[in-house]
Each structure stands twice: as C-alpha cells, then as structure tokens.
C-alpha cells in the first residue's frame, strides 16, 4: 500500500518562491497500477523523484509519501538505501544509458542481486539466469556475458526490470519505461512488466505521456497539469466520461474525435510558465469551459464518481 498525502514541492531563492507541485494526494493498493499522465513540464518527473526520495534534501518539500507504512520523505540517507533495496523498485526511462557501459550485464545484475538479497556469488548468478528467463530471454547465460551496448533497448530495459523486481518490492516506479523504445517493443515491455506484477503483486506507478499506454495498462489514471493532480479516477471512467476540461481535451487528442478527417486535434495555447504566479486555475488560459471564478481562485479537489477532480464545474 502506497499513500501520497498532500505532497507539495517548491523552491526558494533570493528572487522568491516558486511552487512546482501542489497538494498531490493518491493511494495505490498492492497489485494495482496507477498511471500519472501529463505534458512535459507538468511536474510528473518531480512527483516521481519525490516518491523515490530523491528530493529529500529540498527545503520546500511538504506532505508525506508512505510505502508500507514508512515515510519516504522523512527517511535518512541510510534508511533510503534500505528502502530502495527492499521496498521500492525503479524502472528507468532510457534503458541503454542506464546500465553501466563498462561492466558486463551479468556482473551488474549479480551485484544488484547480491546487494538486495544477501545471497552469495554463484547463487546470485543462478537467480539472475532464472530471472532473465522468466522475463523472456531465451539464452540468459549469453546475455549475462554481454556488454550493454551489445543489447537492444528492449533487452536493456528487461535487464533493468530484473534489477528492479529482484527483491520483490512493494512498489515499482516506472518513469516513462517505454518512451525510448519502438512501438512493438513498447507493448512487449509493458507485457513483461504486467506479467511480473501479476506474479509478485507490487503496486505500479507508471509515469508517461503516452495516453494509449496509460489507459490500456492501468487501473487508475492521475492527470497532472501545472503541478496539480487535476483529476484522478478509474482508467475506463476517465476515458468515457472525463470530468476536468483538461482531461476531456486530452482524451479528445487521443481519440481524435472532433478533428477534421485525417487531421489531428490539439489543445490551443501554452501552459503557464512556472515562473508566473496566478491565483486561479492554471488551465484557465486554455480552458473552453472557463467561468469567472476560475481566474481568481484555485478550485479545491472534490469527489466525482469514484475519483477526484479539481475544477469549479463540480
């Protein structure tokens, strides 16, 4: 069980304070998948970094992130190391650059297994082989004796997945796991991740700007805009009946309804820069359903069906 409560991130310097992420709350049961979607610069990566405990040194970090009852944001660096070894797995964005180029895949994987599971040399090798074959490699011994540059992106990603899940974590954070892979590999990798999730039952946070992936492979979807979770809800519900105007615009981009034949639909305007402070809803300047109040006051998060939405329309 992962619980994020009131997570806010802001940075301060001489010129002022900038709020980058505000009041993010959600919870995720074991075995379930939450997709965090949003466009570039919306704060997805910051939220993930905070969940992984990489922003613990920041002063303007508020709220709590609990994984199995342990608060990540208050953990010391020693506690963080134990947390990352035992409870939190991480699947990187760019698999080919994420494996150390000067070490053979085998020695890296064995090293991680030894560190995470207290096993010794030969045993680790066996674990590595069985893990790789369960992730769909036909000749694990051959893969283990290769360097990362000899593998394809998808293969590197599966090795990284093996590293993430070897200690049977409670939570796995996948930071755009498929963004640097081709469409065929993308589905294969998602299948691998879902397969191992079904076997181990970890909670999966899938950060992506790929709506197709988000809606097809997750139970819940959280939409981020301007550093806030503007809407969370069950995936199929958001797809069929989006609540927030931004969500419905996104879904429309995705399904291309309303676009001229052969054309595509896009949301006009640009998101507000983080350096502009704005008292109202940050989607105000692009919203098609804006009200007067949207310009002056930021909406609170309210319940809608089984999810939550932050919009004055509700």
């Amino acid at each position, binding site marked *: 069980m992962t619980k994020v409560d009131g997570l806010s991130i802001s940075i301060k310097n001489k010129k002022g304070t900038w709020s980058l992420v505000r009041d993010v709350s959600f919870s995720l049961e074991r075995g379930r998948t939450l997709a965090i979607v949003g466009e570039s610069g919306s704060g997805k990566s910051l939220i993930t970094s905070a969940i*992984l405990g*990489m922003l613990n040194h920041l002063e303007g970090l508020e709220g709590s992130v609990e994984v199995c009852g342990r608060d990540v944001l208050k953990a010391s660096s020693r506690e963080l190391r134990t947390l*990352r*070894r035992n409870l939190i797995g*991480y699947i*990187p964005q*760019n698999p080919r650059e*994420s494996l150390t180029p*000067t*070490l053979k895949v085998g020695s890296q994987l064995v090293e991680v297994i030894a560190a995470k599971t207290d096993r010794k040399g030969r045993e680790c090798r066996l674990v590595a082989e069985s893990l790789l074959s369960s992730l769909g490699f036909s000749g694990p011994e051959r893969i283990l004796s290769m360097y990362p540059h000899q593998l394809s992106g998808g293969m590197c990603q599966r090795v990284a997945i093996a590293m993430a899940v070897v200690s049977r974590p409670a939570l796995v954070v996948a930071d755009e796991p498929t963004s640097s892979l081709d469409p065929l590999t993308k589905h294969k990798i998602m299948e691998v991740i879902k397969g191992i999730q079904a076997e181990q039952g970890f909670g999966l946070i899938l950060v992506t700007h790929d709506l197709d992936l988000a809606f097809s492979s997750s139970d819940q979807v959280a939409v981020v805009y301007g550093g806030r979770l503007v809407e969370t809800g069950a995936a199929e519900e958001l797809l069929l009946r989006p609540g927030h105007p931004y969500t419905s615009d996104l879904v429309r981009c995705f399904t291309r309804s309303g676009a001229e034949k052969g054309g595509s639909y896009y949301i006009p305007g640009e998101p507000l820069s983080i350096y502009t402070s704005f008292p109202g809803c940050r989607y105000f300047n692009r919203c098609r359903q804006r009200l007067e109040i949207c310009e002056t006051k930021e909406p609170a998060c309210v319940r809608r069906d089984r999810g939550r939405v932050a919009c004055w329309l509700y």
Partner: protein
Amino acid sequence: MGLDMLYPRIVQNRFVLACLFLILLYILISLGGSFLLPHHPNAQSLAEANRGPSFANWLGTDYLGRDLLARILAGVRVSLIIAFFATLINITVGFLVGSAAGLIGGVVDRFLTGLIDIFWCIPPFLVVVMLTVVLEPGIKNIFIALGAVFWVPTARIIRGEAYQLRNAPFIRLARLQGAGYSRIILLHILPCCFPVLLTTAIFSIPDAILAEAFLSIVGLGVTAPQASLGVLISDGLQSFRVYPWQWFFPVLTLIVLVLCFNLLGDMLHRSFRDRSKGILEYD
C-alpha cells in the same frame, strides 16, 4: 573495456611494441640481472678504480672500483621501485579524492577542491624536498614524498570525470537501487575512469624516475652505498671531464627508460582518444 581492446593497437604499432619490449627488458634485467653478473653492485676494489669499459667491466668502474654495469642495473631497480610505488600512491589517492569530490558534491566537493587548490599553489618540489628532509632519507620515504605531491593533478582530472558522470542515467539507476557512495565509486566510476587512470599512471612513472634522479643529484635521494640512477648520474657528474663514461651510461639508461614510458603513454592516450570518437566519426 580494457587491455583486450588495446592489444591489437600495440601489436600493430612496431614502435610502441619496441618500447613495451624495452620496458619489460628493463624490468626483467633489473630484477634478475644482478645475479647473472660476477660483480656485486656495492663491492669495492680500489685497485681497479676509474677503469674504462673493458671485458672484465663492460661499462667500466667508478671511483671506488665498483662495476658500473652492476650499479646501473641495481640503480634501475631502485628507480623503478620508487616510480612504481609513487605512482600507486598517486593513482589511489588521486582517484579516491577526485571521485569523492565529483560524485558527492556539495560541502565535500568544496572542501576537497579547496584542498587540491591549496596543494596546487605550493611548488611540488618544495614539498618533496621538505618531506625528504623531515622524513629520513630512504627508498620508502622518497616514494611517499613523491606520492604526496603527484596525486594533486590526478585528483583534479578524476574529479572532472566523476562530476560529468554523477548525473548519468546509470549512476542514477545505481542510486535508486540503494547503492551507497563507496559502491558507486568502486563499481561504476572506477571502470569508466580506467583509460584516464592508465594514461596518468604511465605518464607518472617517468615523472617519478626523473624526480628521484633530481633528488639524488641534490643529495636528498637514496643513502650512500645504494645505487639509483640519480646517484650514479651525480657521482658521474663530479668526474665528468676525466671519466665521461661514468656519467654517460647512467644518463643514456635514464633517457631510454623515460622515453619508452612517455611513448607508451602517448600511444595509450591517442588510442583512448580515437576510440572515444567511435568508428563512424573517425577522422
């Protein structure tokens, strides 16, 4: 990554192959050669002092009648031992300080960089001379003194490398797998710094040999009966006009030895540089 990739380059380049062969020859002869010669490097025989090259003494004898060839071989051994350990200290300290500064950053980085800057300002030979004066003269203290100043540039280079690597995706992944600093430094940064370290080491060996020679010439080197290339050169210098071979042969040995290491270092440097360009971008 490593020696297996360098092997074809070494074999292709005859010149470098010759250097490598000469260095190995130096090492072998200096280790075993003294046993093959009939003369002990420290055995004096005043009756045969200052002889020129002959069948009995191939390179002649010095002012105490000691065989010059035997002394040169013993001297090369001492010089190589000093150079090896000075380089070992240089590489180890330089790598640890540099990688800690570059990887950890923040206060640690500022402290260690400050330390490097301070050491950088002091003339290195001043420190070496002071250390050899304070510590007792002897082989061990010479390489400690040399190691104590040689690590500074190495640390600076390695800090730059580690600083570049600290935000690399693979370091991030290692951190997110719960690896601590020591594990990241030894497992992930060390292999990436291998080319730089190897080149630095090869260039540091001739530096140490020359530094040791300099110390011996000014009288701070190894103690009296023992021979080193520096001691032989400074002894030879005193009777240079009358018995030039006493000076010439040690100098020739030193030049060839240093040249071999420098050429080898140059080749390593060039081949690592070429390889980092990649096959498709070769120019």
